[in-house]
């Protein structure tokens, strides 16, 4: 049905975010731009339609039961087992490495030294599940997550910026380290936050998928084909390089 509608109206209704550089954000002329936006536009193009964007809250977007408001969500959503009960994952389109960020003055050099320290994470994200050892990624071809971290205390925030703000107060004032996506941490550093990434291995690699509402198998597989094609002809690799400076498509 969805496919028919997209074909007839030539409009692809996309749910995404507006505050996540470089995936999707408002540029200085207040237009939505970013990696997710480019991907969505590309998908629309390949379906012979134009993309129309809407920015519902994360919880609304990822809660399913869209009531036909959106055809697809291109919002860097991680495919996990419980999520697959309410949404259909059409395909993985890139991966994000997660890193440990510490204050500039921190004497720590190795992630392993974080055992017993206070770790800050944003609530209801894969980083929180990672520290709680409950992260189960439901995607083929992704290596299982290795858990070695034993945090002394986990501080959770219902806001993505607050962990960094607490870290910025000084080494060990409120937290010792923050787990977050590499791009987010680099963004913070670029904007003058006095923090650094602990070099060494990534905490884990997070696959990100394009999502459709549950129940329209034909549409999901059509989306899946489109993504596979975009991956195969290098479009995705080109787009990740454009926005992230690295090829995150593998």
């Amino acid at each position, binding site marked *: 049905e969805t496919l028919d509608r997209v074909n007839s109206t030539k409009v692809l209704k996309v749910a995404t975010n507006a505050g996540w550089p470089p995936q999707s954000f408002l540029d200085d002329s207040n237009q939505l731009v970013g990696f997710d936006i480019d991907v969505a536009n590309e998908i629309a193009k390949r379906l012979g339609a134009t993309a129309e964007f809407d920015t519902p809250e994360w919880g609304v977007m990822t*809660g399913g*039961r869209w009531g036909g408001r959106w055809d697809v969500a291109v919002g860097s959503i991680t495919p996990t087992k419980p999520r697959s009960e309410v949404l259909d994952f059409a395909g993985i389109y890139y991966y994000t490495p997660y890193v440990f960020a510490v204050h500039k003055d921190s004497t720590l050099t190795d992630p392993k030294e974080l055992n017993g320290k206070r770790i800050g994470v944003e*609530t209801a994200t894969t980083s929180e599940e990672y520290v709680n050892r*409950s992260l189960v990624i439901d995607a083929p071809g992704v290596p299982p997550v290795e858990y070695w971290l034993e945090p002394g205390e986990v501080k*959770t925030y*219902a806001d993505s910026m*607050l962990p960094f703000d607490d870290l910025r107060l000084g080494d060990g*004032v409120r937290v010792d380290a923050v787990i977050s996506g590499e791009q987010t941490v680099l963004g913070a550093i670029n904007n003058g936050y006095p923090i650094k990434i602990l070099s060494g291995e990534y905490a884990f690699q997070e696959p990100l998928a394009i999502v459709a509402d549950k129940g329209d198998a034909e549409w999901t597989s059509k989306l899946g084909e489109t993504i596979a094609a975009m991956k195969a002809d290098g479009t995705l690799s080109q787009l990740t390089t454009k926005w992230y400076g690295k090829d995150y498509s593998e």
Partner: protein
Amino acid sequence: MHYKDNIDYPPMLTRPVVFVPLLSAIFAGLWWFQSGDGAFGRLVRGLAPVAEGNPLNLVTAACVTALVGFNIFVVMRLPLRQQVWLVWGELAALILLFFYSFDLSFAFIQRKIGFLITQGLLTTLYISAASIAIATVLALMGAIAKLSSNGIAQGIAHFYTSLFRGLPLLMQIYMIYLGLPQLGYVVDAVPTGIAALSLCYGAYMTEIFRAGIESIPRGQWEAARALGMRPVAVMTRIILPQSMRVIIPPTGNQFISMLKDSSLVSVVGVWELMYLARTQGQTEFRHIEMMVTASLIYWLMSIVLELLQKRIETHFNKAATR
């Protein structure tokens, strides 16, 4: 009726001028909005299979209208108190049915509700209760300062209500949690939450208390002062008890709304009810379940507050003026 008039108004809904247009409006509305495609339609189709299309809309509209009419007919035959409770109950049942229609996973709710209550509800209650107590004290001080003849006290009180009503509560939390450390004072999450909530609600309640105090006729103050009572005694024994009738309902509003605004302190990592509901729901993509559960818990809490409010109001109304 608050103002009894020694008139038995004919029950509105039994007058044809009222109920014919009312039921027609319901019927037309249902038809117009194609109720056949909605939940009512599905219900009707479930009960008596009908052909698709327009007739379904018609039948649905007719059924629902008839049901409403019959219900009014039955309710009107009861004494007043029972009418109120019955209508209340019917509507509550409808809402619960509405929630039920979301196709919720009760297993999931059952699994999580214990934690919601032991951790979330308790934190919410603890933070709200502390904030309510402090806010009331602040409000009383603020109101008296605003009505005083001391310019500095008035200035501070006006600034206080202006700032803390004007800034978003979230900003106040940030100011205390992130701003004070800039000045050299690090505050923990829970004290931050209580401080922000108290300051914010204290500002709102200052205005309520002020209006309540001002609503008492000047003669009361004069009589008490002329009898030789001290200003503080006049305030606490004569003016405030009388102004309670006016103060309590909007204060009840504030208490009820504080229950829910206390959820904002979760941004700094306090695990209160709403936060747990959201996170527990999000991790397993069951946030509708968790939202509904949390909402019902909030509703229960506010019903308790409402009943409390009613009792206190009755107490202060016992001598209502003639």
